[in-house]
């Protein structure tokens, strides 16, 4: 792989620029859908871009009682982790830029690195709201990590490989895993919403309780980086679930269609429920989510032995 194509991959196609564009488009679609569900007009198309540009232009204030290097470094780490994980997913329906055996585990690790750095960013300050936000983010991270991983392992076992683009090829040719493993799909979808802290699981940034949780102290560049990271995480989450459960992504049209439908469902779920208290989310997820995922795995293994 000569340096030019890697350079191109890193910076232009599945890497930086393309991701920025597609994440703002998806954020806009998400906010517009939630608005329409709530019978509101919703933001104009360039609103997410405007937000990010405004934030980047703003001065970044470093509050005292905070370790400056961590305060500045963490948003960059978060964004880097997310951008790296994007390289291994079949972004826009095309082959992933890089692929090696076991890259599914690396992608999942990178995704949780993002939430981890968000939690650390909150814990780094002495402001009460972000301390509370940080503890809630980390509690939610631990409770959503395992079932989400199990839900993604289901199709991986069926496909017999840990490499995303091989799974992509497998799901492309076979029956949609959604039909064979519906429970897994449900657990994955709700796990994604828990990971992205979308309502009803938005206790870590409950606006009426703790202002904006771990991000309360952030402004300007740091906040912009975290916001972009969150949007890209949404896009990657949607691509992962559609590659695994909705019969793979072979061309851009399929990509847009499948992730679009998924986004409509996610936005609908967002506007349907009241915010669960953190103890309710964790209680719900460990009791129901984890068990369902385990049963799903058990069923697959048993079926494979029988068939």
């Amino acid at each position, binding site marked *: 792989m000569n340096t030019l194509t890697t350079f191109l991959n890193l910076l232009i196609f599945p890497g930086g620029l393309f991701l920025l564009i597609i994440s703002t488009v998806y954020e806009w679609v998400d906010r517009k859908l939630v*608005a*329409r*569900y709530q*019978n*509101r*007009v*919703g933001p104009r198309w360039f609103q997410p871009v405007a937000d990010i540009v405004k934030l980047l232009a703003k001065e970044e204030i470093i509050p005292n009682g905070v370790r400056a290097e961590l305060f500045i470094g963490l948003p960059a780490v978060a964004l880097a982790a997310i951008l790296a994980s994007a390289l291994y997913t079949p972004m826009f329906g095309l082959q992933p830029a890089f692929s090696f055996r076991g890259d599914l585990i690396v992608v999942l690790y990178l995704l949780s690195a993002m939430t981890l750095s968000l939690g650390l960013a909150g814990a780094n300050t002495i402001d009460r709201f972000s301390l509370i936000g940080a503890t809630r983010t980390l509690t939610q991270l631990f409770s959503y990590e395992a079932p989400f991983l199990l839900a993604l392992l289901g199709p991986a076992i069926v496909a017999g490989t840990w490499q995303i683009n091989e799974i992509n090829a497998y799901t492309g040719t076979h029956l949609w895993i959604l039909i064979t493993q519906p429970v897994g799909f449900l657990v994955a979808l709700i796990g994604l919403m828990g990971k992205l802290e979308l309502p009803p699981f938005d206790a870590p940034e409950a606006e009426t309780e703790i202002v904006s949780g771990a991000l309360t102290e952030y402004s300007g560049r740091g906040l912009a980086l975290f916001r972009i990271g969150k949007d890209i995480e949404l896009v990657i989450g949607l691509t992962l679930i559609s590659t695994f459960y909705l019969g793979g992504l072979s061309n851009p049209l399929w990509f847009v269609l499948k992730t679009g439908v998924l986004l409509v469902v996610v936005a*609908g779920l967002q506007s*349907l*429920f009241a915010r669960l208290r953190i103890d309710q989310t964790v209680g719900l997820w460990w009791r129901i989510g984890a068990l369902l995922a385990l049963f799903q795995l058990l069923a697959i293994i048993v079926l494979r032995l029988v068939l």
Partner: protein
Amino acid sequence: MKIGALLGDVVRSLFKSPATINYPAEPAQAPDNLRGKLIWDNRRCTGCKLCMNDCPANAITLHIIDRKEKRFVMEYYENSCIFCAQCVHSCRSEALRMSNTVWELAALHQEDFKYYYGKQEDVKSLLANEAPGFAGADD
């Protein structure tokens, strides 16, 4: 105990047009008896100053240039007016009413909210001798 009691409404509103309008691009229609900006009719005014005394926000000052020829000037501060129409009801000669079209209160500086109602020459003469301590001069 239902999960997501709002499901029907949420899905339906996806296809309904939004209830919000993007004002000011689309104008917001006001009802016909909206209490907007005060309008004074100097032909009917008798200079009794009832409106001035009853106004809870002291938004009206009535200057009497000449009582016999009924030449008055009303100084009206739209930014301190609270649009309660007490003056309209206190006025015995129906010289005041509130417009239902002018209600958008936005201006670049305070002076834009200060209106002088009355004939041109009265207003000019009032402003001409608007020397300090003028307020008491006309009574």
